[in-house]
């Protein structure tokens, strides 16, 4: 990215600031397959394609970039990029620092354990167990409510890998899709039951740039309506991620 002397003032005329003129620069950790990851040196995944589609709808050039999840909010505030489109879920706390669009998918939080684990069959079996979660993920809170023996990670892959090592970790709570991807990559783990918590990944922008949020929301709605969204979702997951039965699950925020 280039240095840019953009003013932080709110604009009322509906125009918005962009870090790079004519481009929508958006960030993801790049460590979250299949949502955002690198292939052949290029960022790809569900999040990225959604971002690309939104940018195109807005008549902008898509410019996906990576930033570690630990510092991704700060990068937004520090004007390194215009938006976070990196499976960051809306929470009340985060909403104090950034403005969020409508969710662009629902994600089910699922419990994963080692393939050989026969002890843990439901969330009730998690009491007092050692649970791994990615620090600052939305699953940190549910994990805390069932156990106080929490192990924090900065990457899901590291956490899930630890499940395969006896005695290191009893369970990991993360997005079902991420765990299933790891299983596809021969991780000796399994998911327990159905998603219990649902988070709402949304797109974050700087608060003073709310005009941009409005435009993104509009574009998001358009790609959902014209079928682009469904096409992308089907391509990656063989289903539409927004089609979720929200009955009986806890919406995390």
């Amino acid at each position, binding site marked *: 990215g280039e240095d840019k002397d953009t003013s932080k003032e709110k604009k009322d005329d509906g125009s918005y600031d962009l870090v790079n003129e004519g481009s929508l620069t958006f960030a993801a950790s790049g460590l979250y397959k299949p949502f955002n990851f690198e292939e052949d040196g290029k960022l790809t995944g569900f999040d990225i394609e959604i971002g690309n589609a939104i940018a195109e709808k807005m008549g902008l050039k898509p410019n996906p970039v990576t930033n570690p999840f*630990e510092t991704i*909010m*700060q990068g937004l505030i520090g004007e390194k990029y215009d938006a976070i489109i990196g499976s960051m879920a809306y929470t009340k*706390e985060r909403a*104090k*620092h950034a403005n969020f669009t409508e969710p662009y998918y629902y994600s089910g939080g699922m419990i994963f354990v080692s393939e050989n684990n026969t002890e843990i069959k439901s969330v009730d079996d998690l009491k007092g167990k050692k649970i*791994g979660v990615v*620090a*600052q993920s939305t699953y940190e809170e549910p994990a805390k409510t069932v156990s106080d023996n929490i*192990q*924090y*990670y*900065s990457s899901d892959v*590291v*956490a899930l*890998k*630890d499940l*395969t*090592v*006896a*005695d*290191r970790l009893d369970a990991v709570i993360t997005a079902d899709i991420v765990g299933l991807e790891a299983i596809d990559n021969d991780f000796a783990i399994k998911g327990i039951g159905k998603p219990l918590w649902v988070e709402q990944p949304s797109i974050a922008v700087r608060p003073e740039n709310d005009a941009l949020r409005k435009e993104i929301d509009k574009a998001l709605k358009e790609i959902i309506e014209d079928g682009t969204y469904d096409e992308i979702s089907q391509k990656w997951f063989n289903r539409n991620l927004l089609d979720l039965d929200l009955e009986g699950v806890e919406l995390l925020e």
Partner: protein
Amino acid sequence: MPDIFITLFEVFMRTYEGFLKAALITLELTAVAIVIGTLFGVMFALMKISQSKILQTIANLYITLIRGTPLIVQIMFLYYGITSIIVLSNFWAGAIALGIHNGAYIAEIFRGAIQGIDRGQQEASLAVGMNRRQAMRRIIFPQALRRAIPPLGNQFIITLKDSSLVYVIGVSELFGLANREAAASFQSFETFLVVGLYYLVLVLIFSGLLKWYENKLNVDK
């Protein structure tokens, strides 16, 4: 200006319980890493000054590999490497990674200390009938160890700081906790300032002890 101090104080009061525990973990990590590093270090130093070309080559390889790559890459690599062989908690995986890293630097400390001992000591030992092994164990090494303590103390301080990197494999030491605190409270600036102070205090304490010991050593001479 006072504003920032008030915030800092708040952050400090809110976090000190967690940070004190995390500081303990940092110290434990450091201590274990130094112990492991010292074992490795002594072993590879002895290999490096041995007569055997093979042992020398192994030691050189180890030292070159460790000194030629970043610690964080070593941590990741060993983490995934160790994981596929033996079962370790994250703490121990981290401590061992730091220990193996330290080993290369400590090997050089010991090699220097051993080679710094006057050759006459070895000759006098042989002349009274000791073999090389006895001379090393009873005469050379004890003297080298005494000399190695100041640089080892320095390595301890370096390790104390380096231990911050094992946060990547999920050890809840000072920096790992700071990261979570910062993200949770969105007071990143203040949190990292506070955790920096924890490190600073620890480093200053150990630097002080080290200076004191060095002075004592100089007086003893």
